[in-house]
């Protein structure tokens, strides 16, 4: 049983790379969908009901933070990892207030991503156990 992951990034290479950069299955995750903009991502969140979203903070159409606040309206439980090229204080603050689990800088260091995923996995497991 894997936790479902949705990846939202406007660059196909990055979506592709993210799949390869870590071994998701070993970490207990499975990528169930991809989205190349916020609207598509929101749509897929409803359709696929993922446990974790990996979201690029800058996307055309609807940007990452807007997307997250939309997601939070219906799904407050979804874990979220934000990817950003350059951290800006206001963004980070807002992200925290939206209950974002982690904030990873580009280029994505596989080790850091691994560590974050492990943490989220343990978190999800604990929740399942308690439920």
């Amino acid at each position: 049983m894997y936790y479902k992951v949705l990846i939202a990034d406007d660059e196909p290479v990055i979506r592709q790379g993210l799949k390869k950069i870590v071994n998701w299955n070993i970490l207990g995750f499975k990528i169930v969908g991809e989205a190349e903009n916020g609207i598509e991502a929101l749509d897929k969140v409803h359709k696929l009901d993922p446990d974790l979203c990996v979201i690029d903070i800058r996307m055309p159409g609807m940007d990452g933070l807007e997307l997250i606040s939309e997601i939070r309206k219906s799904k407050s439980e979804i874990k979220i990892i934000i990817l950003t090229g350059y951290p800006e204080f206001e963004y980070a603050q807002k992200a925290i207030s939206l209950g974002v689990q982690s904030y990873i800088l580009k280029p994505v260091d596989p080790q850091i991503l691994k560590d974050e995923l492990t943490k989220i996995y343990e978190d999800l497991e604990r929740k399942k156990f308690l439920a």
Partner: protein
Amino acid sequence: MFKFQDLKIREKLILSFLVVSFIPILVLGAVTIIHFRNFALNSSAKEIYNELNFAKFKIIEMTNEAVSIANKLMIDQRLKEILLYRYKSPLEAYLKYSQYKDIENYKTLYANSIYRIRIYSENPTILENGVFYRATKKIKEKDWYKLAVNLNGFIIWDLVRQDEDIYSDYYFSLIRLLRDVYNERFGVLVINLNKLEMKSILNHTSYDTLLVNSDGLVIFSNKEDFMGNTFDIDLQRILSDKGYTYDLNNKKYLVFGVYLPLTGYNKDFYLVSMVPMEIIMREPKRMQRFALTMVFIAFAGSMFFTGIFSRSVSRRIGILNKAVDEISHGNWDLDIPLQGRDEIGRLSENVKMMAKNIKRLNELVMKQKDMKFKVLTNQLNPHFLFNTLETIHMMAVCNEQKEIADMVLKLGKILRKTIESKGTPIRLESEIELVKSYLEIQKYRLGRLNYDIEILTDISEIYVLPFLIQPIVENSIIHGLENKKDGGFIKIKIFKEDKRLIISVEDNGIGMSKEKIESLLSDSFNGESSKIGIRNTLERIKLFYGEEYGIKIESSEDNGTRVDIILPYPPRREMGDVL
């Protein structure tokens, strides 16, 4: 060891006040007191002498009247007749007397000066009537009587006890043997001076005044206590206008005297004022107290103003000192709340100007420093930079190009640290991360580089200036290893020694000559960027941590180089006053 220049300005001012002001005030006060004292004494003395002279004049006038009566009686033929006549009966005497009124007249005329006129006669038939008396045996034995007879007509002055009176008493009297030109004696004259008048004359003086004869015997006084006393004073000395100090019955007196010459055989008399010391000193003492009060007020007043003045000066200097302190800590916009155009005011203006200049210079330096970042941050959007790097990274990942992916990742880390750095201290761990990324990239580039990082002390809480180690490592690679054929090795060691944190970077390269080391650390900038890097790092360390810290290079040619970065332990974290 006391040193004048070590004193605070305030203390200096007060000390110089003591020297410049206190001593003159003291001298002035002392002079004033002495002067006042002498003045008071002199004026009392003057007053006393005036009184004494006046009394002397009056007494001489009295005695002169007595003398003139004596002279008239000396040549009075009728008196001689009356005194020498042998009376057969008292009635005859009575009748004879009644025709002679001269003595009665004198008494009336000179009642002020004269109390009684008496004549002692050896005529046994004389009728005693209060003027004429028989010279009894008792009378004849008296000193004054014998003396008068011996002197044969010379006037003498003496105290005579009149036992004939109902109330016998002493009187200061003129005594004279009466005789005619043929030396025929007809009586001894005694003129008692008017006691009440004498007393009233002496009472016009302010103090106890005595009439003293040349033996020091008190002949007369306005105070009974002194009567009959004898003074053992050298009478010449009391004539001095400073007075003469004399103890009587345990009481101190200042004695002033005037010479009072009378007409007669024993003519030397003195009129003496006895002034109790406490009374004459009363005025000088009051003056002294007044002068002391004035000295005290002057001293306290000037002390007070010196205090205020020195406080104001030291306060101003204090403000300036504090301002300079603030400026030295980087607060250049400080407004110094000092007014006035004195030296301190001008100094503060100059300090303000200096602070302004420093601020301008600093801004200039900061601007130039910022340029480097601005080139990256303004001309190149960091989002674009990192997103592009991520694209390259992911492309490499997709194409299974692990090395490219790794290199891009590390380059991204280095770039991020460079761009995000504000120049403030960062975790030493983060700095080591940066060096690792840098070495990894260099390793890819050169292919023959190995390194080892050894951390021998707890660095979890250690913060250091950013980019301290990287320029040193860069230098090691360029100067130590680049020309070396076989593999290079860089060893980085972090340890604590005494109270210092040492970061040593050691290579096994070709080494450096002494000249090269010197030129690396020297001030002159000429070209090579890595050299500027080391020099720059050295300057930053000295500026931020202090002159005793810095960089030490040990090397011999072909034997590798060891560069020690020497920092305090623990290194300071806050930026504080450094640019």
